[in-house]
């Protein structure tokens, strides 16, 4: 029983980690390359989910909904970049925080205004609905495996893109020293725009993929945004590899902590205090981890070189 539970929860942890990675990857790129704190990244995840629900209702096809929702998230991201964010790149971090916070307030409310406050949902595409038997007695929903798979695929794609292409070279260079890159004659504004659009699309993709499992509701991006920040800080800002590892670490720690903290504490203490202390510790676990990591490595696990 315990082994099965452990395997299932490990898979869940992986799935959560992959989701965090999809969101955090865009955040860390935008932060690392443009030195821009984008709090509005979380609402772009939410928007992705809402757009997928809307396009699914319009087209009735999950694939079309995915494509349209991705394009629409990209369009919204580029629009925001064009109208607002562009004017904030050379501003103080704190100015960026408050402006993007304003955008969160607006979009959270706008989503409620347009689609209503009631939670919405998206069905799992027929092809991937149901569960598979991984081992005798161990069933696991297919869609979650799809999420894990697509997340890892995106991670690989990003790895190739960043480490093997010219674009990736510029991104890495930008993360280390943006003014120098621009002094070398690269159109840094265009690079920024591409990075930004890409990051937005990844957040939107995460929102679309999770919509069949979780309820789609206003404010769903706010909590996940904080977790994404935890991830990029643990990983080291600007590092895709660090973000990937940190995301899986956080995903696993959070999921396993939540399910086993009480049982674990029971080894040391009476059941009833364990029942009270366990959940509190489980909720704190990722923050404890972050504090520990930053205590020993004040710039995260994999800080980009040259900073």
């Amino acid at each position, binding site marked *: 029983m315990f082994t099965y539970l452990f395997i299932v929860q490990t898979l869940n942890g992986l799935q959560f980690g992959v989701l965090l990675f999809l969101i955090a990857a865009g955040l860390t790129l935008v932060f690392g390359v443009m030195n821009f704190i984008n709090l509005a990244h979380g609402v772009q995840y939410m928007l992705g989910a809402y757009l997928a629900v809307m396009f699914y209702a319009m087209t009735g096809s999950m694939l079309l909904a995915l494509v349209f929702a991705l394009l629409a998230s990209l369009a919204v991201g580029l629009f925001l970049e064009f109208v607002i964010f562009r004017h904030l790149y050379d501003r103080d971090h704190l100015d960026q925080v408050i402006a993007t916070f304003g955008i969160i307030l607006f979009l959270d409310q706008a989503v409620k205004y347009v689609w209503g406050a009631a*939670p919405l949902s998206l069905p799992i595409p027929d092809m991937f*609905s149901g569960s598979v038997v991984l081992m005798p007695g161990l069933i696991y929903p297919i869609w979650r495996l799809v999420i894990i798979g697509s997340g890892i695929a995106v991670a690989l794609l990003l790895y190739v893109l960043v480490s093997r292409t010219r674009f990736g070279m510029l991104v890495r260079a930008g993360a280390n020293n943006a003014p120098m890159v621009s002094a070398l004659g690269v159109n840094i504004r265009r690079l920024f725009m591409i990075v930004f659009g890409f990051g937005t699309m990844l957040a939107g993709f995460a929102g679309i993929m999770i919509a069949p499992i979780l309820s789609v509701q206003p404010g769903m991006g706010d909590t996940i945004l904080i977790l994404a920040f935890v991830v990029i800080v643990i990983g080291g800002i600007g590092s895709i590899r660090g973000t990937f590892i940190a995301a899986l670490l956080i995903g696993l720690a959070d999921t396993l902590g939540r399910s086993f903290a009480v049982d674990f504490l029971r080894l040391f203490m009476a059941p009833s205090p364990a029942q009270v202390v366990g*959940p509190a510790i489980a909720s704190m676990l990722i923050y404890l981890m972050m504090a520990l990591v930053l205590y020993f490595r004040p710039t995260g696990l994999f800080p980009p070189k040259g900073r």
Partner: protein
Amino acid sequence: MQRVFMPVAAIAALALVTTGANAQDKLKIGLVATLSGPPAVLGQQMRNGFELAVKHLGGKLGGREVEVIVQDDGLKPDVAVSKAKALVERDKVDFVVGPIFSNILQAIFKPVTGAGVILISPNAGTSNFAGKQCNPNFFVTSYQNDQAFGVPGQYAQDAGIKSMFLIAPNYQAGRDAVAGVKSFYKGKIVGEDFVPLGQLDYSAELSKIAATKPDAIYVFLPGGMGINFVKQFRQAGLADKVKFLSSFTVDESTLPAQRDAALGFLGGANWAPDLDNPQNKKFVADYVKAYHAVPATYAFQAYDAALLIDGALKLTKGSTADKKALQAALKKANFVSLRGSFKFNNNQYPIQDFYMTKVVKTADGMYETAIFKKVFSNYGDTYAKDCPMK
């Protein structure tokens, strides 16, 4: 630089001051509801239900013109206190109706009842205000939480369900829920899981359920948690094998997202949209027409709160001046509730019937709960005996 801002503050203050003066003869009712953040849908149901009642009564309660002032508590206790004080002291309301959540109730209870204003809760019904801390200025039109938790337990006992698995969030109400079920259900309990509040992923619990093969599960997972659990329970293929009993997990506020996944699932409630009386039929039909959604208990309990005020004011001839007389009039519950049988206990919480409800799909493609079986008749809560009020 400091000087520049004084006028701005003064103007803003003035703007706030001037909004106070209004006609004296109107009956003023303050509504405190959570209208922002994820649970906003519950607050909207409550507001809509109350406003619909006022509309049905021709804009008058007890013969007096009504002005309803809606305040959003944002699910922040200190903001709620400020808003409640605004209603009591600025707007001089005669009644405060609200809130949705019990932590907000704890926060606004003292500022409202302490100022001698009547507080009517159309949803939150905590145990502390039902027992020793009961208050003549406090009325509840919903239920005491434990009553609702007992319903599925009694039903499981009556239906001869042999084994059950219980799941609830790890906080006070969650523990109350599990205790409530256990106090009525004497069969075998094969598992008991307290999940962290706000957990979104239930595959571990679902694996456990699949492994222990219970006859039924009891679920108390309100809001977004319930939406996710129901979807994942159906996806895991357990819905056909295990009977689904619940409290506050499948209702009209969550069904638009749960849809087919929740069909046939059971919940304990004090009302359902199909309850057969003409008044209720009109309420449901008009609600659907006006707000394009099926009303949930939040809406109907707020509707009843308005009827309660109307009935009491008819007894006092529209006067709210004599508080003692007003309290006595309210306590008589001089109205016909949408749920049928209704009266107040000595602690001013309701004595009422409880049902098991079942999720059905209506002819026009909406999802709602329908009465399945009556479980309790004229049922009061157990804390009333600790309440010193007679």
